[in-house]
């Protein structure tokens, strides 16, 4: 779509244009030692010069002299907590004087929210969450309310982390769809591309300059470098057959010995959508609050059915995570549930690497 150039010194004009259109802006900020999405009012709020160093079970931010705002890969959050809240009230029920029950739906307020700095993997994951929450069975009203007013400003990755493998899953490092605006950051400024009508409206307000040949060449070099820098990969795009042919592979038992069954991987995974229901009755018994909260296939409750925990040991839980994410997702959504963001590798307290585990348990079975 339409592209133009926004010099670095004019970045604040993008924020101003979004504010004028009624959007509250969220963007990357360094908090508690990681990049997280938080409110952005002015360009100075952005993490200028911040770099992330990621490895299995490890995440550190380094402050450099670089003028860039987006020279990092990602933090523990994707868009998931913004649209699928980690814990939220769905409804309340009140006991009436006649003994009847009155239910009140708790609908989230519709808010125009612009998120700046979204990655290609985040967009791919959002598309999958859309399939789940806005599916044929009807929209989830909470997800739908937040999703409808979301304005997405993507930034093509210039600096994938050591754990990124989106090239292998086909989801990055360049954002190709699902954004309203996409930025390619260069030292001198930003190549701006619009991906939707409302994106085009905002871009038109910016009075963008023409993109010079040098800028285009630098952008192409940067994209190539981002691709070749990645060294992890999954053994194939569709591992369904390989995984289900290997349900008794000794690798499951082996990884279970190293796994804490702590659920950090599923919590940071931008595509995981499991939740538990939590009922909190008031002490007087006259009212109760019904909430949902992120759950994980690594918890005991996740596979509890009346009187029985189906997956009581870590072997069964780890196998559930991988065979669903990389296997049965194909039946459910027509693709794997992994977008290669690497979060489950960095934020696993013991550094278990999904690409290594998948390679182990799929040994000897070729990609479909």
């Amino acid at each position, binding site marked *: 779509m339409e592209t133009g150039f926004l010099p670095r010194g004019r970045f604040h004009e993008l924020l101003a244009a979004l504010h004028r259109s009624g959007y509250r802006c969220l963007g990357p900020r360094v908090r508690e030692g990681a990049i997280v999405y938080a409110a952005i009012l002015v360009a100075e709020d952005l993490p200028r010069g911040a770099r992330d160093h990621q490895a299995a079970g*490890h995440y550190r931010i380094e402050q450099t002299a670089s003028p860039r705002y987006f020279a990092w890969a990602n933090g523990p959050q994707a868009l998931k907590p913004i649209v699928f809240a980690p814990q939220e009230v769905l409804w309340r029920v009140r006991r009436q004087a006649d003994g009847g029950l009155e239910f009140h739906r708790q609908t989230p307020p519709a808010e125009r929210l612009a998120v700046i700095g979204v990655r290609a993997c985040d967009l791919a994951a959002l598309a999958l969450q859309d399939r789940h929450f806005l599916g044929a069975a009807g929209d989830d009203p909470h997800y739908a309310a937040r999703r409808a007013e979301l304005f997405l400003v993507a930034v093509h990755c210039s600096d994938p982390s050591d754990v990124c493998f989106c090239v292998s899953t086909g989801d990055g490092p360049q954002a190709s769809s699902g954004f309203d605006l996409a930025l390619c950051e260069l030292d001198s400024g930003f190549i701006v591309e619009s991906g939707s009508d409302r994106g085009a409206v905002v871009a038109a307000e910016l009075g963008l300059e023409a993109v010079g040949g040098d800028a285009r060449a630098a952008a192409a070099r940067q994209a190539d470098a981002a691709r070749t820098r990645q060294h992890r990969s999954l053994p194939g795009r569709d591992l369904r057959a390989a995984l289900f042919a290997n349900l008794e592979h000794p690798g499951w038992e082996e990884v279970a010995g190293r796994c*804490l069954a*702590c*659920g*950090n991987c599923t919590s940071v995974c931008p595509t995981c959508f499991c939740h538990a229901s939590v009922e909190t009755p008031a*002490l007087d018994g006259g009212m109760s609050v019904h909430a949902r909260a992120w759950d994980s296939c690594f918890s005991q409750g996740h596979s509890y059915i009346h009187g029985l925990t189906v997956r009581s040991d870590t072997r069964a839980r780890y196998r559930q995570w991988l065979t669903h994410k990389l296997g049965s997702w194909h039946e459910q959504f027509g693709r794997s549930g992994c977008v290669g963001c690497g979060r489950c590798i960095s934020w696993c307290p013991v550094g278990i690497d999904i690409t290594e585990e998948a390679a182990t348990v799929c040994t000897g079975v070729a990609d479909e």
Partner: protein
Amino acid sequence: MSTVVAKDRPRAAVHKFASCDGCQLALLNLGEDLLLLSSLVEFVHFAEAGQVNPEAPVDIAFVEGSISTAKDVERIQRVRARSRFLVAIGACATAGGLQALRNLADGQAWIADVYASPDYVDSLQSSTAVAQHVKVDLELWGCPVNSRQLIAAVRALLFGVAPFEEHDKVCLECKRAQVVCVMVAHGLPCMGPVTRTGCGALCPSFGRDCYACYGPAENPNTEVLGRRLEGLGLAPAAIGRCFLSINNGAPPFTEAGLRRVHEHD
């Protein structure tokens, strides 16, 4: 708030054994809800609130503290016999408390070191969980337990349903609170991956590591966490102390801690 006192309220008691009284504060700190609570259940014995009648039969008995003296051993039997539903509250009652450290050492020698007249101290060699002596119907873990846990348990009992038992790992609550992991981002020796939820990931949300005051979660992989702490630079004795802390008497922690402590023997 209407505090109409129900007729035939269930009767409750709060019994204290070897403890600091901190868990009872989760009741006393309820504020206005304490009035509501006492309109729903009748506290016939709650010494800290001024009601003393330890021998009265009750529907719900809250037991704080560990079994630490010969008299305790005998008294907990009487409490059990007089209570329909017995709830052990806090680390002392569920795991023997910090004082269970004496089970791993020569407690009598410590007493001799500390007290001028050790013969005045009449205590057992061990400090143990209530469940090691009598049948416990519900355990609420934590040092101390919080009001939310107590209210949830009482409400469930008043509804006539089994109270919900929390046993997930703190990490799940930590991620729901969107706290940045202090172990991954700062290298702190966090016990969250083996510790039971209930606190709302209180310590990590203040940037410090969890020290396992809610006791072991279900399916805790203490061996792997121990190895991770080693990777963070902790010596075996220090790793041992991570497990042998407030909940040292909880079997998965006792075992993991002793294994580390004895590694360099």
